[in-house]
Structure formats: C-alpha cells, structure tokens
C-alpha cells in the first residue's frame, strides 16, 4: 500500500525478495539514506506486498483506474500499466507466432534458460500476451484500438501487442534458425503491413475478427495469380511474349540503375516464380505459417548471396510491381497491388544482416 512508489523500487519485482534487496544494496541506497539492511528488507517486502495487491488490478487495467484501494496519480497509473505490460525482445522472439497455450507455457523454463530472463518474468510476459489475445481475439473494430481501450496501453505498446496477437493467431513461424537475424521490430512492422492490407479490416471495417484473420477471399483470389505466374516464369521461347515482356520490361528499365544487373537478369525467373508461388499458396494455413521462411529462403537469401544492396532490392521490387500493370494480358491489377505492396514493404524491412 505504499503508493508513493519509486519507479526504482518497482523494478526488481520478478526477482525473489532477497535478490531484490541485494540489488538495491548494490545501488548504494543505504549509503545515501543511512538506513539499515533490516529497514531495506522490510521496505522491499512492503513493495512486494503492494505489488501483489496491484497485480490483480493490473490484469484488468480499467480496474486499476477505478479501484479505490490506492490513490495513484494518473501518470503513475499509466506508468504502472506500461511497465507491467512491457516485455523483453529476447522473450518475445521466442514466443512470437507460437500458440499461446498451456503447452507453450510449460516450455517457458527452457525459454528462461535460453534467454536468461527469470521464469517468473517469462510467465508474466506470457500471461500478458495470452490475456490480451483472449480479450481482443473475437472483437470487432481495429485491433490496436481495441487493445488500447481495454488495456490502456500507449500507442507504441498497443501496436506491439497487435503484432503479437496477429502472429499468435496465424501462427507464423518465426523461430527457425534462418529467421534468427530478424528482430521483433521487423516482424511487428510486417504484421502491421499485413493487418493493414491483407485482413478483412482492410476492406470492411465492421466485421468480427477483422484485424486478426487474413481475408480468405483475397487469399482465394491470389490462387489465380498462379496461372499467370507460371506464364511469367515460364520459358520465354516456348510461351511467347508474356514473360519475356515482364522480364524484359523490368530488365530494360533497370539497366544501368542497379548494381547487380547481370545477377538480377539471370535470377529473374526464379525470383518472380517464388513471389507468385507464395501468393498462390497462401490459402493453405501451412503456407501462411511458412510465409517468413519462404520469403527468406526463396528471395532474401538468393539476393544476399548475389550481394544485392537494399537499394537494388527496392528498385527491383518497385519495377517488378509496376511493370505488371503495363502488360496487356494482366487482369489482376488491384489484387496484384494489394499483394505486392505488402510483400515489398516486408522484404525491404527484412533485408538486413
């Protein structure tokens, strides 16, 4: 109930009391205040008890705002909520895209060992993810806004949670070794792009789960790109003008501008096929899960091995996207843009070491 909490006093909570005390001891607090270890010990215990009482309320932040037990200034309330819902980069990378189930929770001790984050902290972070997920999963309206409204988080943190919920719902694989170079921020950015462009909410703003599930109709339509894609990726001599034209259109416009022109020209067929194939397969849940692996394996890795620069990639993708429009035979303009703009954003975000 000691509500005049120092932010500093709050921070060591996931630690056992003894550790928290020694941590505070090391900070030199006794020297500053002339207090004794006993006093520090009991003070720390008080903070733990206060926190224990606050924690129940923090699970439903709106309760924290309306509760009568503690008179906490609004700015301090916001701080408490924000810090309680904060999470570790290392932890979120372990859990991102996994089902927020009991099974996953059981494995948290492994996560703890691997990341060096205390098990207690891991559990708190996991429970936070799960709690937010449960509440907003079936809700209408914007995902970010729903999270913000129910958990009173800052815009920034609400966006992060939106990404976590989105990933958990579609179960995107993010843990593979090949994906380790990607940060949570990369994924969060991709999630935001996908939510904005590929979910139901992107076309209709008043349906259940609108921001959480991908737009099935859109995925279905993407299948139709396959036929055209095979054309585009096929042997130019055999299949005539279509692909030749796309390839040549892109190549022509990029000549002299791109540093890896030869490699690009040689690889064009594979890259193009990879993008189109991915699109056509997204209707399958399994392929959705492998989305990021596919992007890395089939696109990023080849480009990296050919030493494409980020600028090369940007030029290529821009040209690739726009050139399709100039083809007479191409009938999927809108669909293509909806797909490619997101892919482009994701790839550009993910293209780093």
């Amino acid at each position: 109930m000691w509500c005049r909490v120092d932010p500093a006093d709050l921070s060591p909570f996931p630690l056992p009391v003894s550790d928290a005390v020694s941590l505070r001891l090391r900070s030199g607090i006794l020297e500053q205040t002339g207090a004794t270890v006993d006093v520090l010990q009991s003070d720390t215990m008080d903070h733990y008890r206060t926190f224990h009482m606050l924690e129940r309320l923090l699970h439903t932040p709106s309760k924290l705002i309306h509760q009568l037990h503690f008179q906490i200034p609004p700015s301090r309330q916001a701080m408490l909520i924000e810090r309680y819902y904060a999470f570790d980069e290392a932890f979120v990378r372990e859990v991102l895209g996994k089902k927020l189930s009991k099974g996953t929770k059981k494995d948290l001790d492994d996560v703890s060992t691997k990341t060096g984050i205390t098990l207690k902290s891991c559990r708190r972070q996991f429970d936070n993810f799960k709690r937010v997920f449960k509440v907003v999963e079936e809700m209408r309206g914007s995902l970010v806004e729903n999270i913000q409204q129910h958990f009173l988080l800052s815009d920034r943190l609400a966006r992060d949670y939106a990404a976590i919920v989105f990933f958990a719902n579609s179960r995107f694989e993010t843990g593979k070794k090949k994906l380790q170079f990607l940060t949570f921020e990369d994924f969060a950015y991709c999630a935001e792009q996908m939510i904005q462009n590929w979910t139901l909410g992107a076309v209709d703003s008043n349906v259940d789960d609108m921001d959480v599930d991908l737009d099935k109709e859109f995925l279905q339509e993407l299948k139709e790109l396959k036929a055209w894609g095979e054309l585009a990726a096929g042997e130019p001599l055999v299949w005539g003008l279509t692909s030749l034209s796309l390839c040549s259109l892109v190549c022509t416009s990029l000549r002299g501008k791109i540093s890896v022109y030869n490699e690009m020209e040689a690889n064009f067929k594979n890259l193009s096929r990879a993008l189109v194939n991915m699109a056509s397969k997204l209707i399958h849940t399994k392929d959705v899960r492998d989305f990021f692996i596919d992007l890395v394996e089939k696109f990023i890795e080849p480009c990296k091995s050919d030493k494409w620069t980020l600028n090369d990639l940007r030029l290529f993708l821009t040209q690739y996207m726009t050139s399709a429009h100039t083809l007479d035979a191409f009938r999927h303009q809108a669909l293509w843009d909806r797909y490619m703009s997101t892919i482009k954003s994701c790839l550009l975000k993910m293209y780093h070491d």
Partner: protein
Amino acid sequence: MADRRFAGGRKMPGKLKVKIVAGRHLPVMDRASDLTDAFVEVKFGNTTFKTDVYPKSLNPQWNSEWFKFEVDDEDLQDEPLQITVLDHDTYSANDAIGKVYIDIDPLLYSEAATVISGWFPIYDTIHGIRGEINVVVKVDLFNDLNRFRQSSCGVKFFCTTSIPKCYRAVVIHGFVEELVVNEDPEYQWIDRIRTPRASNEARQRLISLMSGELQRKIGLKVLEMRGNAVVGYLQCFDLEGESGLVVRAIGTVCTLDKISNTAFLPACNSPSKEMKEIPFNEDPNPNTHSSGPSTPLKNQTYSFSPSKSYSRQSSSSDTDLSLTPKTGMGSGSAGKEGGPFKALLRQQTQTALEQREFPFFTLTAFPPGFLVHVGGVVSARSVKLLDRIHNPDEPETRDAWWAEIRQEIKSHAKALGCHAVVGYSESTSICEEVCILSASGTAAVLNPRFLQDGTMEGCLEQRIEETSPPGCGFCHIPYDELNMPFPAHLTYCYNCRKQKVPDVLFTTIDLPAEAMVIGKGCLIQARLCRLKKKAQAEANATSISNLLPFMEYEVHTQLMNKLKLKGMNALFGLRIQITVGENMLMGLASATGVYLTALPTPGGIQIAGKTPNDGAYEQHVSHMQKKINDTIAKNKELYEINPPEIPEEIIGSPFPEPRQRSRLLRSQSESSDEVMELDLSHGKKDAFVLEIDDTDAMEDVHSLLTDVPPPPGFYSCNTEIMPGINNWTSDIQMFTSVRVSRLSNINLTNQTLNKNFNDLCENLLKSLYFKLRSMIPCCLCHVNFTVALPEDEVIQVTVTAVAITFDKNQALQTSKVPVEKTLQRASTDNEEQLQFPLELCSDPLVSQPFSPAKEVLENASSHTGIPAAQRAASLDKASPLAEGHLRHRSVPSCTNSTVSVVKMTPLSFIPGAKITKYLGIINMFFIRETTSLREEGGVSGFLHAFIAEVFAMVRAHVAALGGNAVVSYIMKQCVFMENPNKNQAQCLINVSGDAVIVVRESELEMVPVQPSAAVSQPASAGDVTT
C-alpha cells in the same frame, strides 16, 4: 436494541430515500458462467426492500426506483442504512457478496451534506472488498411535525480538537460524556452455531447501532446545555470480552457560529500568527493568594502521577516544602502581591465552572485568550476487574468507574490551583478480565468569558481595547508559589520578568499559537516494559496496581532526561499509554519537546557515580558524562536552540530569599564543572542528576544515548504542526504502519524486553524515514503510536502520522529552481527512454531515486481531479514543468479517471488548502477475518490489505458526501488476533475523522468552484518482525 418505531405511536418526522444505481467489478459468483446474477437488499430498521435481479453481469445496472423508508428521527440517528449485495441462486440459498453500511447522520443537519451519492466498496468480512455499488441516499426531515426530544438532530459533531476552521465559538460550554453497553455478539451462545461471517456482521451492525445511539444521547445532552455542537468528539470501544461491549464518548460542548464570509478567515495551513492578539490582559502583579475555596493540598496529588512515587526528589524538596505553611495559603505574601483583578477572574471562572460537574475540555487548541495559565499534566489511572454487565440499560458500574477517575483528575487540577482541565482524554487497556482506566489532561486556568452565555458581546468589545501580553502568560504558574503542590524550581518569567514560571512544563495540549519558542521541536518518547507474573483476577489486578506507580515514575524520569538531553524545557501533546498484557505492562509516552523562551534554560545532565574511589569507574563515568554533554550540544545545534544570553542578576534579583536564588542560578547555568560542584553542595538538582548505582541505571543512560536523531532533512513531532517550521508545502502523505513483533520467550528480563521494545519503535521510525526519503525536507506531524499486547510475547505497535514537505529556505529555493527543473526534465526523459522495463534495468533509476519519483508525483499532484480537458490549460499556467509533463500525457486513457481524490490527514487542516465546509463525522468500524492467513501473505499481507481496504472505504464515504478530504483522521483501534496453528486471523479497526470540502488556496483566487486537486495517498505498511 428494541425497535423504537412503534413505541409511542409518534409521528414519523422523516423520510429516507434510497436508490440503487449500479454495480461494478463484482466478483464471479457462478463458476460455470464466470458471471453473477446480482440483486440488492436495502434495509433500514426492520424494513427491507429488494431490487430486481440483474442477470449475468459483473457490472449490473439496477437503476432502481426510490426506496422510501418512513421513520422517526431517533431511528435516523441510531440506525445505519444497510445495503447487502447478493447473488441470486434459483436452487439454493442466495449467496451474499458483501455489505455497505452508510451512516446517514451527516444528512440530518442542514449545513452538512444534502445527498450521499457515489460508489461504495462492497465489503465482506471474510473476503474484503468485492466490487463497488453506486447508491444515492436522501433524507426529507419534517422538522415542524413534533417536538422530538428523544432525538438530537441538528447537533454537529467534530473530531477536530480545536474550534473548526469556518466556525466561531460563541460559548464553550464544557464536558460531555456518555456510554452505552451491550453484550458482545461474539460471546453470545449463538456464536457457537453461526458462521464467522454472520458473527462479524452482527458485531459490525451492533457497534454501528450503538455509536448512533451514543451520538444521539450525547446530542441530547448538548441541547440540554444549550450548545449546538460537540468539538473534540472522541468515541471508543472497549471490547470487554465476556463482560460485554462498551461504547463510550467524550467531547466538548460548544455553541458555534458559522462564519458566513469564509474569505476573511486566516488561511488554514497553520494555526497562524494572526491569532496572536489575546483579549485577556493579565494583571502585572504576581498573585500568590487565592481567595477562592482553599485548595486541598495533598502531597500525593503530584501533577503527574497519583502516587507518591516521586521519591528521588523528596529528600531535599520536602524540607523546602515544609517551610511553607500548608494551610495558610500564603498569608504573608498576600498583602504584597495580591492582585485584585486576578482574584476576580479566578472567582468568575470558578463560578462558571463550578456549575459543571467536570470542568474538562477535550480541546487541544483554543481560541486566542481562552487559555490563561497552564498548571501541568494531571493524570489518573485505576485498575478494575471486569464483571458481566447485567443490565445494559443501566451501565452504572462503568459510569461510576469513570466518575471516580474524573473526580480524581478534578482534584489534581485543583491542587495545581486550576479550575479546569484542557486537552482531556480517556482510554482503557484490557487484558482478560483486568482493565486499566486512564484519564489525563492539562490543568489550566481559563478565561471565563468564553464559558458563559451572553458575555461574548462584551468580550469582543473589550478585546479590542486590551493590549496583548507577550505570549508567555500561559506559562505563568497558576498555583501558590509558597504552597506548591509538588517540588519545582520557580523563576521569574524569562519573557516578561513579572511572574513566576516553572523550570519545565508538561502539557497534553498543542503548542498555543501565541507561544514563543526558540528553534524547532522534536518528538520525545519514553518507552518502558515491566514483566509481571501471570495471575488471576484479584491478584492480577493488585500486582498491576502495584506496578503502575513505578512505571509512571520511570516514564516521567525518562521523559525528563530525554528533554534535557535535547536542551529543551517543555513538552506538548504528552500522551502516556499504559498497556496491560498477560505477563507484562508496557508504557509508551510520546510528546513534542520545545524550548519555550519564557522558561529557564535547562541545565545539563549530571552523572554521579556511587563509588567515587574506583579510578576506572570514575573514568567510565566521566566518559559517559562527556558523551552526554556532546549529545546535548549536538541537539542544540540540530534543533537550532540558541537562546540569548541573559545576565544572571536580572533574573535573580526579584527573588527575596538568597538561598533560593543560588539554586536558581545553578539550574540555568550550563557549564558542567560548575554544576557538579554546586550540585554536591545543595542536592537541589535531582532532576538533572543520574546516579549510576547499579546496572539498571547504567542501562538507562545507555538507552538515553541510543536514541538516534532522525536522518538529515527529517523532523518529527506528535503535535499538529512542528514548532519552528511554517513554510509548509501542499505535498502531504498520510500513512499507517503496523508492526507485530514476537518475542522469543526464553529468559525474558526487563532489560531485554525494554531493549526489544525500544528497537521495535526505533526501527519503525527508521523504516518510515526510509520510505519517506523522497519527501525531504519534511516533517512527520501528529505521530501517533499505539501499543497493544494481543497475546503472550506479542507486541503490536501501530503508527499513524502525516509527512509534510516544507520549503527549507524559500529565498534559496527560488534562485535554485531553474537548475532543478532541468535536472528533473532530464530524469523524466531518462525514464522514458528506458520504456519502463520491469526488471533488471533498474540501476540508472536507483542511482538517483529521489528525483524521478518526486517529479512524477509533483506533476500529478497538481492536476489530478481536474478533468482532462482543463488539465492542459491549468498545467500551462500552473506548472513550469509543462513540457516535461506533456510527454507523460501521451500515455493514453488513464486520464479519464472517475475516482475522485480524497485526502486523509490526522491534522485538523490541510496545508495549502482551506476548509470551506464540514460535512459530518466519519466513524467506521470494520472487522476482517481470514481462514487462509498464509495464502493472504501472512500477518503482514493480511494487515496491509485490510488497512488499504479501510482507507478505500473511508475515502469512498467521504467522496459520496461530496467531500474531498478527511481531517483529524484517527485510527482509534486496531486489534489484531492470530491463530497461526489454524491459519486464522482476525482484525478490528475503528477509524474516525471529519469529512470536509477543501479548496486549494491557489485555486481559491482563480476558480472558486474547482475542487481540490492535490493528491495524497494514504499508505500503510505492514510488518512482521520475529
């Protein structure tokens, strides 16, 4: 309680209307659906209404009709409104979720609240707070319908022990007391078959009913005395176990007049200097003759203790006393010094007070001019054996007990030449069937003008003509110099040099506003334990009676020594608590020491060894002496006590006897060498000499020196405010801390016990200083310690106090501000960059723990409670930290808080704010029980949570009355019982205070209607040390 409603076929003079609006955050009562089907029962007297069931919701919206109770005013005063929230169950009995008791008394007088409306915590004695309920309560009183004299609607009650801020005292009538008794439901046969919950609720309801009845009866007495208010109302419960339950109350009856234009009132933040003018002009001639009835002078009526135990002083002082004729009332001096005016005054006062059985006043601060002289502390204790109260309607035994004690107090006061007792209070300590009743107060001579009807007008006119005395009048002795009731060293007042003053002054009142002090004050405590044998009934009572005088004597000696050690000469707010346990007695005395300019400079403390020939021993003694002298010097510096040097001749000259004069000179000389020499020759310095004749005494000296001063930047006192500090800021923090200490029961001796107790109190203070470190420079005001011995070897200490930050040096502050601001800005930024990581990254913050915390709080404190939209505006105006704060505000949605801020303070005012309205007293009693103590975090966790809940309920009730603060808040009882084997615990808490509306002074100028905005979070800490 008999149902009075149908008793006399009286008319119904009132209509109580209740509306149940909604609930929120209800607990899940149906595990299957995770929901609750809640409905509400509203009960008053024997009438019950029910709302509809609001199915499947944790936030039900009943929006009920108005439930109307037609009741007489007597019931309105006695009965609480009882609201029960239940979960509807089709097949089995409905489950109770919890209850809300609402005291509707504040609605019964016109000036207070007109409606009670707000969110109340739903409380269950087993589960604690379980959600909230929104209720609206109104009362229509048909005042003209009958001449109700069974009720006393309209009498105002105040816990505040001074004249409330927006009132003027027309007449201060005097003492009022009453008690009611009943059987304790916990000890009735039915308790064996009912659930703990039912038993607790029966008890809560009964106490609520009894305090309502008590208040009504007191109100009747007030009307009889032709008053309209009770000030300094103190109500207590005695849980006598098998013998029953006593609810008793004392107070001071006044006729108050509301000051219509509050704007002209002096600011409430300090009992201000504006009150300095005193209407009473004292006769310059010292008067030692009293023409009133002769005061029966007995040696035993020593002002401090009813016993004769002041043995150490007696040898030399007896001779002194014997020189004065015991019955002659100073006939020799009368001709020389007889002051006719004073005699007249005395007579007047006497007649005014004689009409009263007990001329007692529970006030601790007084209107200017009210207090003429202060004699000293008077106290009385008696040990009683409890027996069953056979007829609750005739609680004669208890009445007789108290009457006896009051009589004793009265005679003590008389012995001191005083006709009245101020700062009066009563208390009990009960263990099994033994009960110690205690009463104490300060004997005083009062100005009669306030005490009689119709004299006020004349007084007011006179007031202007009269010149103010220099603020030392109250120190002048009221008793006969040649016929002193106890040995004391008298000198001429160091201020006016005209009248005699004692060398030290002990009082139970607050420091009068006009008193002149040097330096700052400090909290002085005497702590003492005495083991006693376990015994039964009579034998037990006798052994306690025998121990009491020794305890009182030792407590007194300790206080005196500590006062000397601080270099001070007066104690204010003295409160001595003697607590009885199974196998020990505990004494805890707290007071605020100050240096009064009117009194002589205290001499040092002299250690005298018993075996002067032993060289090593001698050395040891001189070493100790040096240490003591150093401590005194250090304390003088710390508390800024630097009285001007006064040439000795001036002070000494008016003394007729050369013998006395030399004695006087000694007592104010400071040089230790000189003291030593003179001391040996005269032996008149007993109060200053510590004889080390055995290890006990050695122990005493050690304990004197082990009291550590508070860390730099902290001051503490148990009075309302700290003498010598007046630039308070509005940053206040009230807190309650409970510590339960279990003594290891092997080889308990008085010494180890004393040490344990001493350490317990010191550690408690230390942990408070540590927790409050971000408020430096600050003062802990109104520090109130309570000791309880709930079981063998268990000591429970409860502390409530308020910390107030003050500007150390305002001039310095303004020049420093820009620098500090940037510093604070920086730390805010720092915090944000960290994105509030919850763990491990604390180091950067820990390294500067003061600034970030403080900054956030200060910002917040100036804005909470103002709607978000206005906030930005007022922020820009009010706070130079606006930019820094705006970043905080980007954190969303927490700003739409609907919880109104209610400040709580044990003081009678709120610094930086003005009380504009008193809404009625808050008097609440809660029981909390658990059968899963370990799971709830042990004793600490349980108490911590319970105290938080009590605070929450107090705040909710105040907010519902339309108030935004509680002043004169006090936790009167905190009884904790534990059964670790059964994993059970029970705690009873009784709190009270005055609900008020305060307006910040800064807002007063700009927007008069704006409610107060500053934040204080009452906080508590539970602690167990084993």
